[in-house]
């Protein structure tokens, strides 16, 4: 059955259906509908809800709840995400699962509450202190959230690592029809590390302090081996009209929806432009772009930022293609027609450079 819901509320509902029984949040726009939904639904479903005193407290409550063995989640945006980075670093170091929702807004500083993609670096480069990564999932529709959220909890449990769901104010606050019928609760995994009292087993401890540099290094290599495994197994993306494409737009989340609108116009005029939409921003679909570079010369990166994912595209292509870029930072949302004009210009310039007509 389809229901009309905001992305934030749908995300909360999907989390509960995925077996999340502990949510900790602090008000910040544009993710408040999620906190509000959890306040109501956790009470009804017997789960734990706390409106914490800060984002720092919330992420540490998540750490505690996760250590106690349950599926735990928090959510925030911009300034609040900066505050959560300390806790995320500890979650990774402790190898504790958690799902963290980031409905990004314009920055830096207080910025604004408009949709933005300027926190890509913070999300995909670890974000806090230390050598680490979090899995970053970037849905583009409210319906896709119902697939992303159970996946996020499953990946978090499987790899014992925090998973970030990176959306923006538009995805969080827009209402779309959503159907939860196909949502499957991820299977419970055996957690032999949790702290629930040393009953019938030796006492356990969870900590990240490793004074001995060699042992700390080994712990780091262990984490890195896990990240390599994630890179091998968990890359997800969508391709759209790439088979005959002469130019491929790379965009994610709401940016990809704007790009799709632009590409439909371009296709109507016979311009062979396709789309790659990374669904996992980390691990990034490196190999896909490398493979495409065998037949495609020009890649056009579009972001609602001054240019962050474009660095991953450059890294992926290793110089084997021209990289074009268009971005609007600060919470500005370009219309598809604006992007269409710019991609079209680059498309014809690239064609001319190749000696086409």
């Amino acid at each position: 059955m389809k229901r009309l819901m905001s992305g934030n509320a749908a995300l909360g509902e999907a989390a509960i259906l995925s077996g999340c029984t502990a949510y900790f949040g602090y008000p910040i726009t544009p993710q408040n509908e999620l906190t509000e939904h959890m306040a109501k639904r956790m009470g009804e479903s017997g789960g734990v809800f706390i409106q914490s005193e800060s984002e720092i407290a919330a992420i540490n409550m998540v750490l505690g709840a996760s250590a106690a063995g349950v599926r735990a989640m928090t959510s925030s945006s911009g300034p609040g995400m900066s505050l959560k980075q300390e806790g995320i670093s500890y979650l990774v170091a402790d190898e504790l699962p958690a799902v963290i929702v980031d409905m990004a807004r314009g920055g830096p500083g207080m910025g604004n509450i408009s949709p933005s993609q300027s926190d890509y670096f913070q999300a995909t480069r670890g974000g806090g202190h230390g050598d680490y990564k979090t899995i970053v999932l970037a849905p583009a529709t409210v319906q896709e959230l119902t697939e992303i959220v159970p996946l996020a909890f499953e990946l978090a449990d499987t790899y014992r690592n925090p998973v970030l769901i990176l959306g923006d104010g538009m995805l969080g606050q827009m209402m779309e029809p959503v159907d939860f019928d196909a949502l499957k609760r991820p299977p419970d995994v055996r957690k032999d590390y949790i702290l629930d009292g040393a009953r019938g087993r030796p006492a356990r401890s969870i900590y990240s302090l490793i004074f001995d540099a060699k042992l700390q290094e080994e712990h780091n290599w262990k984490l890195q081996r896990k990240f390599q495994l994630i890179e091998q197994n968990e890359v997800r993306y969508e391709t759209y009209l790439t088979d005959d494409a002469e130019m491929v737009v790379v965009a994610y989340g709401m940016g990809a929806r704007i790009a799709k609108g632009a590409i439909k116009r371009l296709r109507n005029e016979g311009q062979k432009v396709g789309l790659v939409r990374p669904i996992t921003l980390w691990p990034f679909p490196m190999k896909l772009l490398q493979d495409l570079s065998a037949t495609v010369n020009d890649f056009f990166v579009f972001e609602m930022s001054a240019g962050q994912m474009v660095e991953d595209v450059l890294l992926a292509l290793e110089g084997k293609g021209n990289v074009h870029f268009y971005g609007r930072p600060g919470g500005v949302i370009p219309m598809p027609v604006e992007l269409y004009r710019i991609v079209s210009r680059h498309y014809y310039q690239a064609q001319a450079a190749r000696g086409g007509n």
Partner: protein
Amino acid sequence: MARDSAGGATATKTVYKRPSLLKPAHFHYCPGCGHGIINRLLMEVIEEMGLAESAICVAPAGCGMLLYNYFEIDVIESAHGRGSAVATGIKRVLPQNLVFSYQGDGDLAAIGTAEGFHAANRGENITVIFVNNGVYGMTGGQMAPTTLLDQVTTTSPAGRCSNLAGHPVRICEVFAVLDGTAYLERVAVNKPSGVTKTKKAIRKAFQRQLDGAGFSLVEILSPCPTAWKMGTMEACAWVDDVMKKVFPLGVIKDTGGDCAAPAAPGAGAAEAADSEEG
């Protein structure tokens, strides 16, 4: 060891033994430090109350950070100052377990004041063991929020001056005005009578938690001869002569243990978990 001369045979009378929950490890604490006593008392109380299979400890950043090396119970490390938030997350999920955080004065009274204050205000059914030695010990003896006026530390070389660095923070008195707090007591481990009182206070705080009374905290004045640059005996005397004047000992607040209907957060979750099992 006491010899039983009457019977001629040799018998022993145990006057002190290592609690079974205290691992046979060497403490990393400096000579004369109060942490070792507090660690031992905690394990004694948990053993005596039969809570070894229930207790979960949240260890801090600071001198108490290696508790998992000493405690034969579940222990999780917390980031600096976040112990009360981590304990909150655990306790809400496992309301039947004994959950306590172990926090120093920099941890609770400076960087983690918000987390401690709001856990207290929500009446989280947890216990905070608050070790107050008036300095940042682990990092080399810098000024803490609890450092006394005129006290010399590495970051108050001319003595703490209230104009520039404010006043010593009395956490128990601050938390006492919050309706969520059930039991707050300040004790000291600088002499045998104080150690006995500290043990009683810890036991009482844990009992309040078992009763579902809400937030409990035991503030323990603890000598730090190394950072205070004193001999061990001198440090113990200084707690009596100087520190206690600013941090008076005693029960600061006790709402009583008779809690007919535990109102602490998480009680609902426990019922939900029970009915799910049933």
